[in-house]
């Protein structure tokens, strides 16, 4: 067993888990990685390209190798870092990216063929024969590529979104972050402390250093007790701040239940949008390695990680370990492991003349030049002054110095700057103005420096917010420099990995240099460096150093990569938020929804609305049968349809008429009180925008309607006109769409039906003619509005009552109108009725058409300035020859299909001869065949002629006759009677 003594695991509980089907045990406080190490498992994964056997390399979120598929079934989560998976009882994980078992991956053949797979090889071959790419080469590559797999079952867990606001956000709960949070929280400011780990402390948990001569955990425990008593401090464990956005907004994911066995009582994860006046980035640093031949053997890891496993998780990857270092930090690992009883085979230190800090062998001025042990490290080759020997050991810790985690300070494309003393990039001055950086993330890596810089950063941030705070008593802590040497990689012939996951070696970088792919972005893209799931956290700076050596430039001259969100991978399900499926978008219901549902209506999505599409009756076998009945019943008796979804805007004020005059292409100011007028709005570019009706209820009061689809945009446009264009006009706007249930009552019996519900109002044609409107009461005192308007061509009205009475009014009208043939109709019949009448709707008002095309060119007044009037007269719009026509099949049995293109009967059918297209089509029970509306070049002149409707997409070509778009009552007598 490689389980050591001590550590921050709870030995009082044993947790069972499986990896690749084999059972193991661990303890609370373990990660999957630490528990596997404690169970003598070093091999945890396979690399991306060569399928090389890999072990865990780090102890944190920067892990490139130990990626697993966590959980099973629909909860299977690919590419999960074993280093971040908190152990729970019953955890099940499987290794990934292998064909066969983890020990015997058939795709490891790629490794043997690796000379052929050098950087950029894909671009140079697989081109012949042409058709083989999609059929052979690419499928082969795709199968071999990828990492973990998705179950392709819907994610069964719940996710949440939320919003937090604070004065100060502290990112990272290590020494610097804790000191910052303490300082700020004591001042009374609203503070959030977020850390990706499940335990506060950061590196303090991994070190054996004392604070105030006591274990660091004592200090942390005292702090946590104080934190719990501060209501202005929100401590968020298991929370990764993954992105820095504009103006102090941060994205964070809290893993609420990932450490629990599913299914969860609450949500799995929550996406928090944090708005913070100031932030302190205290995200620590990531250790880097030193490439040498075969440096990817399982058992080789970062020395700091080895120390984490030993000190925090009480686990060692082997009983006998070695250290390869270019600084003093490597020696700490040797000391800590030795103290835990692990045998130290030696510390190989690139610096000449260094001495051991304890009882272990040191190879000074030496380097590791090769490693053996395909499935687990067995031996290391140590080279000094050209002399090599082999050293037996089961694990190696590499200490190549530390890279500050500057990512979140660089998400605004700020460039980190090179610090030659620290031999690392530190945050530059061009980061987000509301963020400061503290601790190891700022290059202040000693515990003392981290504590101090965290507290000082908090003081500075609070002072910018006008708050005073005092520096807390910080514990005494180590403050030793690590005395690093600039030693970046071990020269040699073998393959030395720089980016482990994507299998980018020093040789690949050399090849990129040789092929002139030298700018850092070319290097990345040519070799795939830094593009793996770890985003090159352990690779990029080392690669820059190698490229710098090749070009003879300095590292900062060679460049740095751009850091982009997210800091670590974020599940799409949590980014996609809490409500999905049916709740992806809210649903609007009409006032008569419940009534329609009770009638057995079929509903259809119309934007956010659900509308009754048709009302099937017993015995009806097809939707067409139902719709035909509804249409005919309307034209013969009276039909009722909920049209509440049309936008309604209340326009009031002394200048309301003038305002509408400027908004609509046609005149509105001249409309008489008590009358309604159809209105056409243009966009300022002269194209048709929206249509509707304007009803003038009083001198200073209009109610205008918009189409259902454009209700929102038109209201915005009206406010724009009111506030930005003509603020001098006295006009007030408010939407009343939802306030009124509006029902269309259409058909020859419409008047007779309404007479039965109005409270003594004279509906005669003379008293209430076509296009009249009024306010009245119905059903014994219910206030209502009545508009005599028609989209069906029939005698028709729209009646509006307060929305809560819509359901009852509909039921009442159907009941009292039974003998008049009162029939509810849905959107399908509504569509048929309007096509039969030749009324334009969404398919005609699609934003690409003009008033002229709609046959309304004359409506655009030349006597006044209105939005779009000037641009509607441009050459291209005036020259447009296509105009709205009606279309009927020559052979009535033939279909008319919307989306068909129109051609002269003898023309070759191609783009150049295209005369137009069918916008809307339906079966017309009134006409007895299919009918359509369409835009046709010189359409008016072609009335009576034949034309071809081509729908090659569905193999159709139908002869149509061009007719007037008004299939019903073209003279308009019915609606005026």
């Amino acid at each position, binding site marked *: 067993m490689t389980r050591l003594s001590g550590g921050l695991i709870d030995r009082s509980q044993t947790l069972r888990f499986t990896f690749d089907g084999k059972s193991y045990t661990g303890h609370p406080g373990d990660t999957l990685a630490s528990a596997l190490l404690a169970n003598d498992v070093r091999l945890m994964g396979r690399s991306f390209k060569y399928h090389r056997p890999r072990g865990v390399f780090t102890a944190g979120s920067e892990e490139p190798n130990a990626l697993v598929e966590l959980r099973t079934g629909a909860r299977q989560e690919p590419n999960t870092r074993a280093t971040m998976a908190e152990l729970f009882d019953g955890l099940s994980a499987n290794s990934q990216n292998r064909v066969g078992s983890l020990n015997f991956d058939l795709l490891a053949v790629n490794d043997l063929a690796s000379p052929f797979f050098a950087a950029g090889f894909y671009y140079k071959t697989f081109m012949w024969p042409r058709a083989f790419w999609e059929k052979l080469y690419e499928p082969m590559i795709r199968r071999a590529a990828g990492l973990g797999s998705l179950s392709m079952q819907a994610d069964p867990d719940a996710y949440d979104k939320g919003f937090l606001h604070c004065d100060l956000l502290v990112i990272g709960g290590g020494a610097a972050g804790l000191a910052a949070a303490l300082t700020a929280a004591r001042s009374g400011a609203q503070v959030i402390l977020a850390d990706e780990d499940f335990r506060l402390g950061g590196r303090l948990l991994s070190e054996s250093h004392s604070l105030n001569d006591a274990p660091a955990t004592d200090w942390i425990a005292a702090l946590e007790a104080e934190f719990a008593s501060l209501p202005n401090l929100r401590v968020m464990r298991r929370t990764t701040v993954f992105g820095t956005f504009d*103006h102090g907004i941060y994205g964070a994911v809290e893993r609420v239940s990932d450490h629990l066995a599913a299914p969860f009582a609450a949500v799995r994860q929550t996406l928090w949008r944090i*708005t913070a006046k100031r932030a302190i980035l205290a995200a620590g640093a990531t250790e880097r390695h030193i490439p040498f031949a075969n440096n990817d053997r399982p058992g080789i890891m970062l020395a700091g990680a080895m120390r984490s496993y030993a000190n925090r998780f009480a686990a060692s990857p082997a009983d006998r370990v070695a250290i390869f270092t270019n600084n003093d930090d490597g020696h700490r690992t040797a000391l800590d492991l030795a103290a835990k009883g692990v045998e130290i085979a030696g510390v190989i230190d690139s610096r000449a003349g260094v001495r051991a800090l304890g009882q272990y062998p040191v190879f000074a001025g030496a380097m590791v030049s090769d490693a053996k042990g395909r499935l687990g490290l067995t031996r290391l080759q140590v080279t000094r002054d050209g002399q090599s020997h082999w050293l037996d050991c089961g694990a190696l810790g590499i200490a190549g110095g530390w890279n500050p985690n500057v990512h979140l300070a660089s998400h605004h494309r700020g460039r980190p700057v090179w610090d030659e003393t620290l031999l690392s990039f530190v945050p530059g001055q061009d980061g987000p103005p509301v963020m400061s950086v503290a601790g190891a993330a700022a290059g202040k890596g000693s515990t003392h420096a981290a504590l101090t810089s965290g507290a000082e950063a908090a003081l500075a941030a609070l002072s910018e917010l006008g708050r005073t705070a005092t520096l807390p008593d910080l514990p005494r802590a180590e403050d030793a420099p690590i005395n690093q040497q600039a030693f970046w990689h071990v020269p040699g012939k073998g393959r030395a990995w720089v980016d482990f996951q994507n299998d980018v070696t020093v040789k690949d970088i050399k090849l990129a240099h040789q092929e002139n792919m030298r700018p850092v972005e070319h290097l990345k893209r040519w070799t795939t460096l830094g593009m793996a799931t770890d985003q090159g956290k352990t690779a990029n700076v080392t690669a820059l150093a190698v490229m710098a050596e090749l070009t003879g430039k300095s590292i900062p001259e060679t460049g740095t990569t751009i850091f982009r969100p997210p800091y670590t991978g974020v599940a799409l399900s949590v980014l996609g938020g809490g409500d999905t499926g049916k709740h992806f978008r809210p649903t609007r219901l009409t006032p008569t929804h419940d009534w329609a549902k009770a009638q057995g209506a079929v509903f259809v999505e119309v934007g956010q609305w659900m509308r009754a599409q048709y009302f099937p009756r017993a015995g009806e076998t097809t939707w067409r049968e139902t719709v035909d009945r509804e249409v005919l019943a309307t034209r013969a008796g009276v039909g009722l349809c909920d049209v509440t979804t049309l936008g309604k805007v209340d326009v009031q004020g002394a200048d309301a008429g003038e305002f509408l005059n400027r908004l609509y292409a046609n005149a509105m100011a001249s409309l008489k009180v008590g009358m309604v007028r159809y209105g056409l709005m243009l966009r*300022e570019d002269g194209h048709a925008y929206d249509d509707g009706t304007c009803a003038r209820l009083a001198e200073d009061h209009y109610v205008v309607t918009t189409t259902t689809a454009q209700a929102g945009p038109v209201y915005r446009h009206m*406010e*724009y006109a009111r*506030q*930005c264009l003509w*603020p*001098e006009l006295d006009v007030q706007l408010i939407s009343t769409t939802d306030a009124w249930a509006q029902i269309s009552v259409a058909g020859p019996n419409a008047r007779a039906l309404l007479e039965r519900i109005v409270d003594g109002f004279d509906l005669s044609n003379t008293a209430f003619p076509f296009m009249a409107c009024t306010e009245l009461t119905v059903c014994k005192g219910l206030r209502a509005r009545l508009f005599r308007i028609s989209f069906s061509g029939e005698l028709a009205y729209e009646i509006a009552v307060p929305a809560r009475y819509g359901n009852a009014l509909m039921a009442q009208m159907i009941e009292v109108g039974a003998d008049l043939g009162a029939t509810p109709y849905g959107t399908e019949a509504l569509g048929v009725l309007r096509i039969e009448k030749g009324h334009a709707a969404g398919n005609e008002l699609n934003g690409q058409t003009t008033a002229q095309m709609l046959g309304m060119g004359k409506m655009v007044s030349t006597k006044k300035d209105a939005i779009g009037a*000037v641009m509607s007269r441009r050459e291209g719009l005036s020259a447009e020859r296509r105009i709205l026509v009606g279309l009927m099949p020559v052979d009535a049995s033939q279909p008319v299909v919307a989306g068909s293109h129109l051609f002269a009967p003898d023309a070759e059918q191609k783009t150049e001869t295209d005369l137009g297209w069918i916008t809307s089509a339906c079966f017309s029970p009134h006409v007895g065949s299919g009918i359509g509306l369409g835009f046709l070049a010189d359409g008016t002149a072609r009335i009576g002629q034949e034309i071809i409707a081509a729908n090659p997409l569905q193999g159709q070509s139908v002869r149509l006759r061009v007719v007037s778009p008004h299939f019903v009552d073209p003279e308009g007598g019915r609606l005026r009677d």
Partner: protein
Amino acid sequence: MLIPHPLLGLRDAQEFTYLGDAALLNRPDGMAEGAAEAFNDYVYLRDNPAGVHRELWFHEQGDRSWLIVTRNTVTHEILGAELARDVALAAKGGAQ
């Protein structure tokens, strides 16, 4: 982003709908001489600066005010915000 609403303070930009260059306030007179050219310039041509830009935002999920926000298009820094109505009225000689 956060928009400093002149009446409501900092509000998340998600509450707003963006229109474009605040020059859209200066709508030409459609009845005037040369209206065609003036409208082409007004409707289609933009300065599109890499730097400080005055632009129209509508507080759609808020108080429905149109704002003129002054913002740097390179850094996204916001330098100020005014009610578009106030600006438009001032431009028209403070009518009302």
